[in-house]
């Protein structure tokens, strides 16, 4: 039943060459020619099979906008509805390859109404091609797309200045647009912006350099895509973060924790801890179908076996022992609101890492994506981007998006309709009462003292203040007892008792209070703030 003849050694080597895959996104305004560009890339790299090409000839006559000529945009405008409307309404994924690299392209909608589809396509991309119509220059949509692309962490941009044939391949036009784009996106933190003058329709500077742009000293688009270096910055060799996705218990003898390594690498014998609990243990096995491994790295889907019988479930994160990823219920971030109903604070589910939790949001500001200016706002319209504070009902292991692309990203889901209403990134984490992951002290209840001492939603200042107040109040009780009983021993006991009993009562009260408010599905912090009510 096995396949006849195995691969030769050199064939295996070719298939196991590293990192020959680039995921990129194309975005631009309506009619900038995105679909034509992707059609051109597919056509020029020989990715369009003959039968599809024959179908394209028929389609070009029926729906095309290029007369009798081939309308390459029709190769990628796949859904009947959008072929009729002539616009790309949904993100479409396309695949092509050259001898040097394989490519996955997200072709994303230009129309403002479909910004959410664009953001989705950008979230998985290592590079963005932003199309600018040479006749129109940098538009509001260009800035909007650049902003979204930068928000979801794309650091390399190609600005394809398209329809150069319609401006006579004028170098001055090209330079002016490049200059205005640089100025407009100065604050977006791109690592690299490459400008290429192209005509997607005619193929200028796509597969090869055009004779009409002798002044252009750079590379053709495909050449650039084949060679651009998108290797992520080397991770800390001691780092490991793996959200537990699934607990694998096929029988009583085996218990493994399956997940995709978000950051760093896992090694046999490595000291780890489980967040949020803070329990420490060690990796005793990395199990795969093809046998045990000594090591596994970032982005691999693995199953880890731990030395001790520790408790971990979906949503927990296995991290290196020295990792300081915080556990928190509250964070500040930026999000793109994707629902037709305006953003409101309640009735949401936060999905982050492998966790979900009931959550409430408070909108702080809305960001004008044309000027990148921020103004205070309490809500966001569909396709609006703003700064928000998100409060989850339970503590989650979270990081900023700059630190961790997995634990720093989130979506919000409407609890009633199940609609995905927002996507966002975490900018700042607010550590809470339950646990600071760096300070786990004991195996059993590492968070006990912190939990007793800290008020909800704490910061170092409020924590210090709370401790100081408790000491002062205990001293007052001690002094009162001394005056009333005239006994130093009784006074001391009263003071100590006050200190301990109050803490326990407070903790007990907080737990009960939370349970009651959780029943009402209202975030307790929302009440103490008075926000959103």
């Amino acid at each position, binding site marked *: 039943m096995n396949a006849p003849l195995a*691969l030769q050694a050199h064939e295996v080597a070719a*298939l196991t060459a590293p990192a020959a895959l680039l995921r990129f996104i194309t975005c631009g305004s309506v009619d900038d020619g995105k679909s034509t560009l992707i059609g051109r890339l597919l056509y020029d790299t020989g990715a369009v099979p003959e039968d599809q090409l024959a179908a394209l000839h028929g389609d070009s006559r029926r729906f095309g906008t290029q007369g009798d000529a081939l309308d390459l945009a029709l190769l990628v405008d796949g859904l009947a509805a959008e072929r009729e409307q002539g616009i790309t309404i949904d993100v479409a994924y396309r695949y092509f390859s050259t001898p040097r690299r*394989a490519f996955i392209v997200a072709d994303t909608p230009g129309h403002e109404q479909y910004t959410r589809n664009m953001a989705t396509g950008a979230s998985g991309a290592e590079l963005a091609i932003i199309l600018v119509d040479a006749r129109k220059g940098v538009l509001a949509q260009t800035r909007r797309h650049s902003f979204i692309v930068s928000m979801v962490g794309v650091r390399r941009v190609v600005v394809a200045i398209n329809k150069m044939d319609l401006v006579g391949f004028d170098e001055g036009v090209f330079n002016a647009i490049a200059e205005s784009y640089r100025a407009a996106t100065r604050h977006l933190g791109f690592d690299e912006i490459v400008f290429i003058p192209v005509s997607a329709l005619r193929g200028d500077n796509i597969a090869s350099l055009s004779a009409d742009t002798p002044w252009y000293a750079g590379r053709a688009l495909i050449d650039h895509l084949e060679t651009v270096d998108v290797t992520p910055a080397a991770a800390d060799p001691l780092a490991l973060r793996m959200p537990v996705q699934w607990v694998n218990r096929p029988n009583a003898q085996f218990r493994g924790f399956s997940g995709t390594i978000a950051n760093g690498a896992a090694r046999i014998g490595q000291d780890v801890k489980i967040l949020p609990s803070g329990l420490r243990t060690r990796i005793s096995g990395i199990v795969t179908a093809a046998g045990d491994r000594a090591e596994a790295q970032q982005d691999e889907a693995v199953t880890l076996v731990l030395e001790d019988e520790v408790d971990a479930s979906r949503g927990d994160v296995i991290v290196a022992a020295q990792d300081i990823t915080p556990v928190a219920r509250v964070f500040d971030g930026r999000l793109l609101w994707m629902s037709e109903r305006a953003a409101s604070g309640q009735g949401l589910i936060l999905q982050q890492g492998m966790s979900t939790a009931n959550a409430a949001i408070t909108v702080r500001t809305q960001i004008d994506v044309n000027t990148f200016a921020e103004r205070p706002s309490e809500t966001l319209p569909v396709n609006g981007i703003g700064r928000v504070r998100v409060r989850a009902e339970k503590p989650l292991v979270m990081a900023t998006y700059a630190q961790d692309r997995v634990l720093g990203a989130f979506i919000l889901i409407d609890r009633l309709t199940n609609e995905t209403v927002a996507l966002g990134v975490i900018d700042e984490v607010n550590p809470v009462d339950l646990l600071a992951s760096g300070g786990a002290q004991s195996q059993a209840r590492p968070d006990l003292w912190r939990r007793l001492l800290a008020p909800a939603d704490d910061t170092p200042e409020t924590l210090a203040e709370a401790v100081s107040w408790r000491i002062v109040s205990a001293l007052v009780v001690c002094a009162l007892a001394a005056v009333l009983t005239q006994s130093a021993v009784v006074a001391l006991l009263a003071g100590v008792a006050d200190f301990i009993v109050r803490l326990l009562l407070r903790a007990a009260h907080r737990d009960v209070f939370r349970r009651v408010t959780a029943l009402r599905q209202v975030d307790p912090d929302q009440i103490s703030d008075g926000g959103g009510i």
Partner: protein
Amino acid sequence: MIQLTHLQKLEAEAIHIIREVAATCENPVLLYSIGKDSAVLLHLAMKAFAPGKPPFPLLHVDTTWKFREMIAFRDARIAELGLELLVHVNEEGRAAGVNPFASGSRLHTDVMKTQALRQALDKYKFDAAFGGARRDEERSRAKERIFSLRTPEHRWDPKSQRPEPWRLFNTRKRPGESFRVFPLSNWTEADVWDYVALEKIPVVPLYFAKPRPVVARDGMLIMRDDDRMELRAGEEIEMRSVRFRTLGCYPLTGAVESTAATLPEIIAEMRSSRVSERQGRLIDHDGGASMEQKKQEGYF
């Protein structure tokens, strides 16, 4: 840091998706259609849950017109892996005598495949069904999500698909709703064959060229797999060296003339081919938006 290869990245993504379904859906099933994509999907499911087995059964929707070699391969493979396989046939369709010849490819596919799949999903109340479809296969697939939500009536609404940023899949659904899940969304035909070769995954021998009895009909080479296929006047059975790029119902699946009898030969042939793999499938060509329409009606 050593970089993962292209295939390792695709593998990790697929395993992540498969585990996500196991973790968040109550009653998943893997649609096993015996072809190379299903072979890869099954292999990935075995990997995802090792050392255990996939915590869901396999389902084969049998139109009763599959190649005999496919059925033999299926039974041998399932026995070898020790998995649970459910086979469903649309008995009403069989009783009514629906077949690719008398009923036409369209009605046959609708009744014996699309309706049969819906019957099976309803019968076992599956809330998530894995499929081996890839986005590079056909235009409307290019826009389908990895987690594709279906109404209780199994309809797909291309206009209200959920955004899937990063790997944050919203797997919440209402009672009766279900997901079609496509872990191989980002794979191409070349990736599938490369992976089959690299991982030594068994596939149906029909993919490899050898002399087979074929009939030229409607511009295709049809392999006469049993005597239910009656010859038309003037038709003759010839022995030709052929193989199949995709596998479906034998009367609807065109063979290609080829001498590629090994995996490296198949891979070389595919890379130099200028014709898409679904070209041999009759059902894709019934009008411009044919596949999109079938999907809205509940086709996989």
